[in-house]
């Protein structure tokens, strides 16, 4: 009897643990503990949870943007700022012309996708030349693009008085409010409310639709080619798939999604943050994907969904709970430790 229990334990419990991964279990437990503590302190849980839903929708697309790169064998795309910078340019153009509401959002998304695609092609071309070092090169290409665009923001020919510094007549401000009607436009679409608990239906729907599109894409011919090239370049070659072409497509897609993602983020946040604000944008996104169960060379849409939900819930709840339990902003420290610890874990165990 005892042996059978042990065998069952090994087969079911340990098997499951190995499958889900210890870090993901730990973080799930941590989130549940935080929820418990929040409940114990009599905090408004429905308020906290609706807040975390907003943040899931806000950040989700940036996490989703990592997926094509991992699938295509490019590793974790720390070069996300390339797409973010392209997306910000796309977003500022309709704002310069004072477009408002959904028009601004649609024009911005289309322009962002276009610029992101072009930037992604260039980025992918570079990554094809630095095989094996994509993550490191991507990190620093991202950093340089952000600092390079800082100079661009100062010199770019934007003339709308709402966007530039009041004195001097040149240079964009560091934080710009979104045009009226565009700010929170997706959040408020079809919002469902139960007392304090409110669901930003439009925002979540937008995120889920994009997830669905990406999942569908990976069932098409081109998507399957990317996956094949990422998993086994030699096998892909034998099947007549060009590895370089697939990687180019993966990088362009990833960068384009990042560009589209920052438009959704800024619209939901209500502000466009320029200059050095996007510098570290890739790291929380990467952490979310890894927490969801992704790894350096394997990830799926479900990892994106689970990871974003877990990580954003953790971030949303940690701050108010930490403020109740200890004074001082320990949640920021927790965020840094959890996010980078997760990335370190993935880097040191992913097989090459």
């Amino acid at each position: 009897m005892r042996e059978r229990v042990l065998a069952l334990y090994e087969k079911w419990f340990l098997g499951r643990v190995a499958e889900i991964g210890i870090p993901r279990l730990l973080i799930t437990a941590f989130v549940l503990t935080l929820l418990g503590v929040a409940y114990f302190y009599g905090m408004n849980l429905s308020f906290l949870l609706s807040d975390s839903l907003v943040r899931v929708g806000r950040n989700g697309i940036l996490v989703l943007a990592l997926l094509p790169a991992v699938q295509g064998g490019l590793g974790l795309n720390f070069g996300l700022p390339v797409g973010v910078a392209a997306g910000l340019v796309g977003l500022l153009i309709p704002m310069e012309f004072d477009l408002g509401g959904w028009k601004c959002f649609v024009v911005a998304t289309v322009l962002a996708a276009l610029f992101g695609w072009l930037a992604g092609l260039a980025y992918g071309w570079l990554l094809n030349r630095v095989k094996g070092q994509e993550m490191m090169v991507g990190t620093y290409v991202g950093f340089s693009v952000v600092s390079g665009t800082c100079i661009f923001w100062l010199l770019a020919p934007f003339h709308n008085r709402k966007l530039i510094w009041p004195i001097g007549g040149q240079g964009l401000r560091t934080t710009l409010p979104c045009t009226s009607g565009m700010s929170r436009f997706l959040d408020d679409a079809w919002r469902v409310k139960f007392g304090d608990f409110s669901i930003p239906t439009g925002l979540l729907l937008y995120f889920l639709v994009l997830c669905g599109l990406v999942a569908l894409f990976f069932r098409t011919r081109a998507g399957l080619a990317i996956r094949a090239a990422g998993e086994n370049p030699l096998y892909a070659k034998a099947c007549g798939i060009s590895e370089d072409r697939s990687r180019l497509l993966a990088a362009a897609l990833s960068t384009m999604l990042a560009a589209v993602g920052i438009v959704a983020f800024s619209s939901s946040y209500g502000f466009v943050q320029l200059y050095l604000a996007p510098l570290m944008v890739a790291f929380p996104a990467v952490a979310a994907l890894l927490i969801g169960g992704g790894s350096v060379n394997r990830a799926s849409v479900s990892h994106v969904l689970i990871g974003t939900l877990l990580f954003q819930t953790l971030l949303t709840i940690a701050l108010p709970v930490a403020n109740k339990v200890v004074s001082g902003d320990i949640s920021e420290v927790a965020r840094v430790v959890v996010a980078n610890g997760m990335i370190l874990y993935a880097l040191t165990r992913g097989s090459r």
Partner: protein
Amino acid sequence: MNAPAEHRNFDWMALARKQAVPITFVALCLTLCVMSGQGPAFLAGEVATRLARNSFTTLSLIVPVLAGLGLNFGIVLGAMAAQMAIITVVHWNMAGLSGFLAAALLVVPIAIAFGWLVGLLFNRAKGREMVTGLIAGFFANGLYQLLFLFLVGTLIPFHNPALLLPEGYGLRNTVNLAPVNYALDDILSVTWKSGQGMAWTVGSADKTQPATGAVPSTGPESAGAGSPVKIPISTFLLITGLCLGIGWLMATKLGQDMRAVGQDMHIAEVAGIPVDRTRLIAVVVSTVLAAWGHLVYLQNMGTLNTYSSHEQIGMFGVASLLVGGASVSRATVWQALLGTLLFHTLFVTSPLAGKTLMGDPQIGEYFRVFVAYGVIALALALHAWKGGHQK
């Protein structure tokens, strides 16, 4: 691009192609120096100060490069160890050279422990040491903040109102390092003032401190062209010693093993070299040197930004080394020194040049951040581009 040169000129062309990065940066620096509109005395003084302040840290990156680990972004942990040591020394009310030496001794076990941990990480992440080191720095920074913002004064019994935040726990944002300020620099230094000639100062940190204390750490704007320039000979002697030491280390059996591992891990393994152990030692050496380098930096600065002094150390060190013409797999002492000189010249002049050129120092400010990141990105991309077939 150029047509094939004559035979006599061939050497120059080859040199230009090989040393393209430092030559470009020499040209850029000279242009910026002219555009900054400052006198040569002011620029020389600023750059000499920064060279003394930063060379040691840049030099600490050489050993892992030669051992095949690439650019060790994990030196941030060495800088953290240095800050822990110097905070402790200030807490113990030690001052002057003895305080500095105590910190230098105290930092060794901490840095060895950190270096060991980073080395273990690197051995588990072969082929992506650099990105692992970068993330390890961010991760350690989180733990560092946890330690100094929340644990000091609560779990760790540490009660010093001069160092703690008003709440009674957590370290202040800035720690005054006046007791060990110039402890190393003032053992032997030369002060040069236009019109007055040179004045040598030997071992009189306390006496000279009020007179020269404010000079090197003031910003470029506030220091006029006529202010005296202090050159810390003793610090430069120490840096020379380190250069010789690195040369000596690489000539020993251990150094040769490191080079062999750096060339090809598999061949080194077959040849009987304990690869993992050699890599580990290289990282430990680098971390300890970086910790000492950061102490040199801090004693010159005179203040410690508890939560930010260490953050940029890795990036500036790596960028300096690369500007000097080093690559991910090749670095020399001269490249480190030249790179530090060029990078910090750029650092001093670009805001000033941006001001005269565009009327906006902010552009120069962003430009130098762009150069720091851009040069790393470029060097990494060029290296991976060339070595792409080996991986």
